């Protein structure tokens, strides 16, 4: 259980791994996430399932190196096992034929957007995908997204690939052109999701966002993942992770995400001083 079967680096500090987890693969629906622990003193971190293969009994995870846990994950090798993977968790994406759906993915957010795009595409929606990153090297999974999209627009902040500009500008362009849009799904860094919602709010477009609050148990027990939506306190893990983006208090989410910045740095330094796991790859290495 939870053995790493494949692993590759797909961008600077971004890794993808295929992990044996047959029961989770069987039960998983688009939009749902898992919580994992790397080792017995590790923390519980949530990650959205980027893909799955029910026949092979595997799930695919994509992560960016941020703190001790994600750096540790990057040093784990094929054949190593995660201590625990719990899931699927959270509510699945509501999937039906809405008509035309625009999926907006920024940076690492493209990974969780992929299974949702696939699900919506399979349900007969006309999928327009807008994928963006700061620079070309940070674009991930573009070919995966292309396969499940009817249209794909790629943008980079520095213009190194595709449209020069932010995903919000591309979205605004579609709206200005008079494109009929029935739903927008946006996943990425919180400032990006906030900016997308500022665009869609003006155009009165229903917008779904997938939030990434800090979690511990992921089953509604601890309340760490509190988010405010339409003025009400909800739990990201059981009420979400997807919410009506036009109603989310993004500023509160950003503040709560910054709560452990200090300890996260301490944990990361501690990890670097006392490396664990397989030592054939190192954080920051190729």
């Amino acid at each position, binding site marked *: 259980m939870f053995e790493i079967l494949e692993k590759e680096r797909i961008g600077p500090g971004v890794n993808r791994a295929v992990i044996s987890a047959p029961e989770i693969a069987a039960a998983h629906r688009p939009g749902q996430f898992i919580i994992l622990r790397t080792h017995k003193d590790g923390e519980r971190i949530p990650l959205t399932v980027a893909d799955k293969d029910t026949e092979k009994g595997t799930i695919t995870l994509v992560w960016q190196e941020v703190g001790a846990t994600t750096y540790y994950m990057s040093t784990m090798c094929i054949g190593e096992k995660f201590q625990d993977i719990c899931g699927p968790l959270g509510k699945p994406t509501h999937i039906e034929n809405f008509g035309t759906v625009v999926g907006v993915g920024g940076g690492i957010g493209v990974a969780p957007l992929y299974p949702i795009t696939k699900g919506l595409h399979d349900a007969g929606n006309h999928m327009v995908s807008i994928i963006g990153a700061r620079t070309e090297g940070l674009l991930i999974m573009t070919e995966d997204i292309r396969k499940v999209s009817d249209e794909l627009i790629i943008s980079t902040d520095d213009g190194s690939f595709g449209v020069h500009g932010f995903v919000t500008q591309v979205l605004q362009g579609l709206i200005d052109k008079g494109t009929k849009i029935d739903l927008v799904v946006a996943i990425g860094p919180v400032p990006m999701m906030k900016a997308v919602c500022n665009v869609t709010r003006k155009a009165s477009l229903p917008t779904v966002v997938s939030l990434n609050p800090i979690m511990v148990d992921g*089953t509604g027990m601890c309340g760490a993942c509190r988010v405010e939506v339409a003025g009400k*306190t909800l739990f990201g893990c*059981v009420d979400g992770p997807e919410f009506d983006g036009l109603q989310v208090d993004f500023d509160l989410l950003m503040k709560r995400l910054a709560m452990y910045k200090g300890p996260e740095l301490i944990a990361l330094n501690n990890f670097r001083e006392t490396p664990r796991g397989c030592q054939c790859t190192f954080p920051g290495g190729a």
Partner: protein
Amino acid sequence: MSDLEPKPTKKPKIPRQKMPEQDPIQRAHNFYEVALGYENDLALLEASRCLQCKKPSCMKGCPVEVDIPDFIQLVKSGDLMGAAWKIKEKNSLPRIAGRVCPQESQCESKCVVGAKGKGEPCAIGRLERYVADYAATHDDGKRPELPKPTGLKVGVVGSGPAGLTLAGALIKKGVGVTVFEALHELGGVLVYGIPEFRLPKAIVRSEVDELRKLGVEFKTNWVIGRIETVDDLLEKRKYDGVFIGSGAGAPLFLKIPGENLNGVYSANEFLTRANLMKAYMFPQADTPVAKGRRVVVFGGGNVAMDSARTALRLGAEEVTIVYRRTMDELPARTEEVHHAIEEGVKFQLLNSPTEIVGNDSGWAIAVNLQKMQLGEPDASGRRRPVAIPGDTAQIECDTIIVAIGNGANPLVPTSTKNLETNKWGNIVADLETGTTSRDRVWAGGDIVTGAATVILAMGAGRKAALAMLNTFGIS
């Protein structure tokens, strides 16, 4: 006996034997167990205080009906393993019950030795703990013979006190049991909620291992309601019955301004980080928790005491419990309140929080309070706190822990077809049998009653097990 010797009159009265404890000043800074347990001679002395009543009333005070006089008699005769098995006939988790049961309001409140103010009751709980610890540390590998497997099997949702008790009761009657646990560790509230210094995790593990040795199967990281439903357990896995003991794991908040500021925790989160995730070992363990300098805890129950004492141990300089009634109405066990006071926890009574004040970067910096006075008794029978208009106060703090209780976790009730729930989301179940609106589905513990005690959950698990056995036609 010569005439010169004085005639023995009445037997000298032996006082209730105290249990040795760690020094308060020392223990307020470590996570080792507070109460150290009886030594052999103390246990024998205490056991000798039991009157071996013909009609023991103590047993009526025990939700799982342990044969109290019988086990104490075995202690007196020196057969400690026998005493342990006598307890385990009714209670599969005696090391836990001996530590966290509110004995003073249960078995011991009915003890004849302590009746009518004649003296202090026999320390039944301390003896239970002594016997169970002895058995665990002197395991001779012998187990009572189990009946032949009946071929029946039951799925249990949740590995807390209700589920574990039910599992123990069923496996001893030849019913196969699989326990499904959402977290990575078994024990539910016993491992995430109750701190190490009150119930060491090693004790919970040893009790779980005991059940495993008897044949109970466990599946961790298994969230019923997400990976499978109760209906799946019955239809796909073909269980003959399902017991839902998923607990009251949905933290309640006061719904006051500032409650989502950084530094504000539910007690569940704070204790889970500190206990289950070992944040007290950070950064050797990866999970952090805010180590407040000035900590305020809202609430007056055992969870509030646990949170306050944990905060002290994490290094807080000042920990204050804010409670809206007086010391007399605190719902926590007297012993826990006493321990908290000894360790330096402060109490701000007759105060109710109205707002949490934050700074520009979103961190809590103070709590505004409204002074209260006690009015007429309310529905709970306790005098209702009433605000004194205009009388307010403020406490500066950097960490706030909300310990005002838990609601029903919706995952299982909402994912099970046709399962009746009440307006609070708790499962409607018969308190004597655990039967629910669904055939072959039983429920018990906090998911039925709302947040209560470990032993009441154990009682519910035991009653549901007996009801299941009855349904299965096993006596």
